[in-house]
């Protein structure tokens, strides 16, 4: 492979006191690729996810993002470099309108600040226009344009999840990390989610998603990584992984695979 990986994790491990949550995991995401991270509950997916996003430093291993060594870098550092993430418990800015929620997310693209706002400089006004454009685009992609005046905390659960995605999209990331985006979705919504992910991939964005919903994993992912008890036990295309006997063994008897 001549193209360097967008996200490269080698030997990532995490230890909490006596508990080894993640052990020696190698994971990579190429530009424009959709990678799924699956595994039974307690496999360490969320811990790994948080380490990749910068919310938690790894106990061992190294992490590169966009060719830069980002091991132990903070969440905002990763975000500044083009990584966006959603949270398992839906996370929005509750008191702000949907529009303001998404506008806030354009933070990393702006260079003008208070002085520009005071003088209303050319650069400032251009950036305000750009911010509007990005916000509009993100809301339309997430299907929330009609809700832009509503306050974040007043949205129903499903719309809040869409808002989360809209916020992530507004940062115009190179890599989007989704934490169980299909949780609580009915089949129709899940189908729309798969389409959205495919759309994003076609636009050149890379996506890494942690998911239990197998239809979404099968439909959206180019490659799947399987974690069990903190270790990587399989990797490959969705079809390969699903027919891998080790993977089947780890899932059977622990929980049913919902398709």
């Amino acid at each position, binding site marked *: 492979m001549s193209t360097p990986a967008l996200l490269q994790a080698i030997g990532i491990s995490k230890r909490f006191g006596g508990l080894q949550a993640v052990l020696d995991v190698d994971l990579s995401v190429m530009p424009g690729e959709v990678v799924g991270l699956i595994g039974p509950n307690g496999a360490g997916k969320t811990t790994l996810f948080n380490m990749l996003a910068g*919310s938690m430093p790894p106990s061992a291993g190294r992490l590169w993002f966009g060719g830069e060594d980002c091991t132990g870098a903070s969440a905002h550092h990763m*975000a500044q470099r083009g990584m966006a993430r959603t949270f398992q418990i839906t996370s929005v800015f509750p008191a702000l309108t949907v529009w303001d929620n998404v506008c806030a997310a354009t933070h990393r693209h702006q260079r003008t600040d208070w002085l520009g706002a005071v003088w209303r400089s050319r650069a400032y006004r251009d950036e305000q226009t750009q911010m509007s454009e990005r916000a509009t685009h993100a809301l339309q992609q997430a299907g929330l344009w009609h809700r832009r005046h509503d306050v974040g905390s007043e949205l129903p659960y499903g719309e809040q999840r869409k808002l989360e995605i809209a916020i992530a999209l507004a*940062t115009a990331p190179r890599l989007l990390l989704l934490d169980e985006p299909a949780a609580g979705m009915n089949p129709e919504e899940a189908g729309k989610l798969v389409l959205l992910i495919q759309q994003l991939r076609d636009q050149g964005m890379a996506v890494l998603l942690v998911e239990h919903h197998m239809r979404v994993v099968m439909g959206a992912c180019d490659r799947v990584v399987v974690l069990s008890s903190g270790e990587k036990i399989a990797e490959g295309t969705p079809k390969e992984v699903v027919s891998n006997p080790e993977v089947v063994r780890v899932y059977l008897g622990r929980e049913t695979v919902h398709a």
Partner: protein
Amino acid sequence: MNRWQQAALPLGLLCLAPLALGNDYVLHMLCLWALYSLLALSLNIVVGFLGELTFGHAAFFGVGAYTSALLVMQAGWPLWLAPLAGAVLAGALGWVIGHVSLRIIGPQFAILTLGFGAITLTITNYWVDVTRGPMGLSQIPAFAVPALGWDFSRAAHMYPLALLLLGLVLYGCHALQHSRSGRAFVALRENPALAASIGIDVFRTKLLGFVAATALAGFSGALYAHYLRVITPELMSLSYMSAMLIMVVIGGKGSLIGPVLGALLYTFMLEALRSTGSWRMVVFAALLIACVVFLPGGLVSLWRRRPAQGKP
């Protein structure tokens, strides 16, 4: 902006009207209102924009006042430069205290700022050689333009200047709200983890806001010193701190007009109730409680349904 552009002219004229009355007493009250508004606006940056409760803010007001007064009286600094130095020193102190305290949140942050504020007050009280301790500084030179006959220790002259400065600071705060940093403040107030995940350096942004607030407090302190011409360590006391908080909370924290309204209410009600002695503070405290319980958004929320920042 349009709503404000329409209102600005009539409001401005309204504010200037008292000058025509020529009542020095009322004009003096209005000058105090304008200066307290500046102070309240500075506290609003921390309490309203950043969403952090601080109890040390009065200290920065005092630091600005003393710095400016001392620089002019002891070091012969020019009057137009000293207040800026007051602002800078207050901001620098704010940087040190903020750097040390802002990683800690919740009630511990409030206690820390309280502690720093109290220590600043104690130092001011006991460094008698420099600050003259509890006796304070008096005969502080006022701003003046002798050639034009302007003496800014007189209410009638100070009022337009104070109004002008208030207008400028209001515009500055408005610009802040619509700037990258201003939006970042709101984001980190609403959801710090999410703010970090969209690229906001929470600590540095908080520190920036804190320093801006303390510098502004210092500046208003300096203006206060050169207008009233007498200052004592009382400026840094808890009673000034409570007064500030009352202004911001009753007026409406997070908004721009709120602190100004709160300062107006405080200044005039305090005067109106002067004859009742200690009971006037009881009234204020009751108002504060009523506000907190029934009108958490402050007076401003009476006519505003939600704080709209931008329109698509």
